[in-house]
C-alpha cells in the first residue's frame, strides 16, 4: 500500500507578469521506501516537498488531482488537521539550519518544546529524550549542545539538531530537503546511515530532495529527475547509469571524477527540445 499518493501536482505563483508554474504536473506514489528527487536550483524539487505539507504560502497555490497521505486527503484537510500531521506524522528537514532554528531559543528548549506540549512529558523525561535524539545523530557532547544557541553551532551540527528534532516524534514520512548539503562527506555518510536505519527498522517513508545526483543514486531506491517543474525521468537508482534522458545524462557527465580526464568538463547541453518544452 502506498503511503503517499500524488497525481498531477501543480504549484502556481501569480506574479505581475502572469502566473508562473513552479511545479507542473508531478505524479508519484511512495511506499515505505526512499524516493529521491533531484534537479538543479529552480527545478521545483523543494516546492514539490513543501506542497505535500501544504507549506506554500499565498500568493502560491497548490492544485492536484489527488494528494493523499495514508488514505487521508491532504488537499481538502483543514488547517487543524494539517497541523496534526505536520511534525507528528510527516516530518520535514529543511535546507538551512541557519534559518530554520529559532535563533533566540537554546537548542534544548527547541528540542523539548514539542515533547512537553504535544506529548505532555515532564521536564526531566523530555530532556532525556532530547539528549538521546542528539546522541542518535552522533553529536558528541549532547549536554553542551542542549545549552547552546543556534549561532554557537557549526552548520553541520545545526543540521544534525534539525534532523534530531524531526525524528523525535517518529514520523511515518520524512521529507528531507538537502539534509546533508551543509555536511562534510564523512558526517554525511553518518547522517545517511541514520536515515537509512529509520527506513529499514521503522518502515518510515523518505523523500530525499537533493541536487547531488550521485548521492541520491547511492542512497535511494528510486529517483525522480526534475527540470523546470516537470519530472523528466524516473529511474531505479541502481540503473542510474543507464538513464536515457539527455538532462539526466548531462547532470551525470558534468561532474568531475577522481582520476578522471583533466580536460574541460562537458557542460550541460540545453539545446534539446526537452529544455524548452512547455516552458513558461
Amino acid at each position: 500500500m502506498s503511503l503517499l499518493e500524488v497525481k498531477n501536482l501543480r504549484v502556481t505563483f501569480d506574479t505581475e507578469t502572469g502566473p508562473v508554474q513552479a511545479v507542473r504536473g508531478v505524479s508519484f506514489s511512495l511506499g515505505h521506501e526512499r524516493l529521491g528527487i533531484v534537479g538543479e536550483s529552480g527545478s521545483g524539487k523543494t516546492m514539490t516537498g513543501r506542497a505535500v505539507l501544504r507549506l506554500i504560502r499565498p500568493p502560491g497555490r497548490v492544485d492536484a488531482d489527488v494528494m493523499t497521505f495514508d488514505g487521508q486527503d491532504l488537499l481538502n484537510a483543514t488547517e487543524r488537521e494539517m497541523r496534526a500531521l505536520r511534525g507528528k506524522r510527516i516530518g520535514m528537514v529543511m535546507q538551512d539550519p541557519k534559518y530554520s532554528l529559532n535563533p533566540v531559543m537554546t537548542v534544548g528548549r527547541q528540542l523539548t518544546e514539542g515533547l512537553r506540549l504535544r506529548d505532555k512529558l515532564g521536564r526531566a523525561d523530555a530532556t532525556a529524550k532530547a539528549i538521546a535524539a542528539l546522541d542518535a545523530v552522533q553529536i558528541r557532547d549532547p549536554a553542551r549542545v542542549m545549552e547552546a544557541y543556534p549561532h554557537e553551532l557549526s552548520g553541520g551540527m545545526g543540521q544534525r539538531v534539525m534532523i534530531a528534532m524531526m525524528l523525535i516524534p517518529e514520523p511515518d514520512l520524512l521529507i528531507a530537503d538537502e539534509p546533508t548539503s551543509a555536511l562534510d562527506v564523512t558526517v554525511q555518510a553518518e547522517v545517511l546511515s541514520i536515515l537509512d536505519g529509520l527506513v529499514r527498522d521503522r518502515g518510515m517513508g523518505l523523500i530525499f530532495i537533493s541536487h547531488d545526483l550521485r548521492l541520491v543514486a547511492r542512497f535511494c531506491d528510486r529517483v525522480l529527475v526534475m527540470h523546470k517543474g516537470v519530472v523528466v525521468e524516473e529511474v531505479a537508482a541502481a540503473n542510474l547509469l543507464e538513464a536515457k534522458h539527455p538532462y539526466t545524462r548531462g547532470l551525470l557527465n558534468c561532474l568531475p571524477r577522481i582520476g578522471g580526464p583533466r580536460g574541460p568538463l562537458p557542460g550541460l547541453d540545453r539545446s534539446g527540445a526537452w529544455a524548452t518544452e512547455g516552458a513558461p
Partner: protein
Amino acid sequence: MSLIEVDNLTVTFRAKGRDVRAVDSVSLTVGARESYGLVGESGSGKSTILRAICGMAPVTGGTIRIGGEVLPTPRGRAFSTRVQMVFQDPYASLHPRHTIDRTLSEPLAIHGLPGRDTRVVQALTDVGLPPAFRFRYPHQLSGGQRQRVAIARALMLKPQILLLDEPTSALDASVQAEVLNLLNRLRAEQGLTFLMVSHDLAVIDHMCDRIMVLQHGRTVEEIARDDLANARMTTPYARSLFDASADRMLSTTPEPSR
C-alpha cells in the same frame, strides 16, 4: 624556488578565554603555475590557511613567504597585486548595492590604475560575461554569473596567485562544471598559481596537481594526483575521505563517451 612557502604555520584563536588552535604547524610549498589543493572537513583549518596568507587570521607561529619574501603585516598594496582570493558564497561576497562596474573598478581606483573602461570590459569578457553586465547589480545575476564576477574582480589587478575558497560549492553541478572550466582556462592563459580549498575530493582532484589532506588543523598526508587516482594513500583518514567521496559509486563503471 617555490612561489608560496608556508613553514610551520600556526593559527590560534581565542574563544571564551580558551585557545583554539585552528592550524597547527602546517608546512607547504606551491611552485609557480602549480595548482595545489587543500581538502578536509569543516574545522580542519583549510580555509584558515588561506585567510592567514591574506592576513585575516591571527598567526601565532611560523612564516609565510611569497616569492621568497616574508609577508609584511599588514599586507599592503603590493600584496594585493600578487595575491587575490575568491570566496565560497557569491551571494555574500559581492556588495549588494554596488553595480558590477563599481565592484570591478574599485581595485583600479585604489591602486590608481588607468584605463578603467577597457579593463572592466576586458575582465568581463575574460570570464565569459557580456559587457552589458557592467551596469547590473548582483541580485540581477544567477549564482554562476556572480561567481564569474567574483573571479573577474580577483583578476582585476593581474595577480600571480589566486586563493580559491570552495569556489563552486554553492553552485549547481552544471554551473560548477562551467566555473571549473573557466578557472582552468584562465590559469593556462594567464599563468596563474592556484591554492584551492574544497571539501569535494573529486573537484580537488580535477583541478589540482598536488593535494594536502588536513584534519583538526594538522597535515594528515600530502598526495600527488596520480596517487589519489590510484588510491595510493597511506593514512586511514585520507582513505576514509576517499571512500566517502560521492563519486566512488560511479567510478567503477567507466562512462561511455558521447
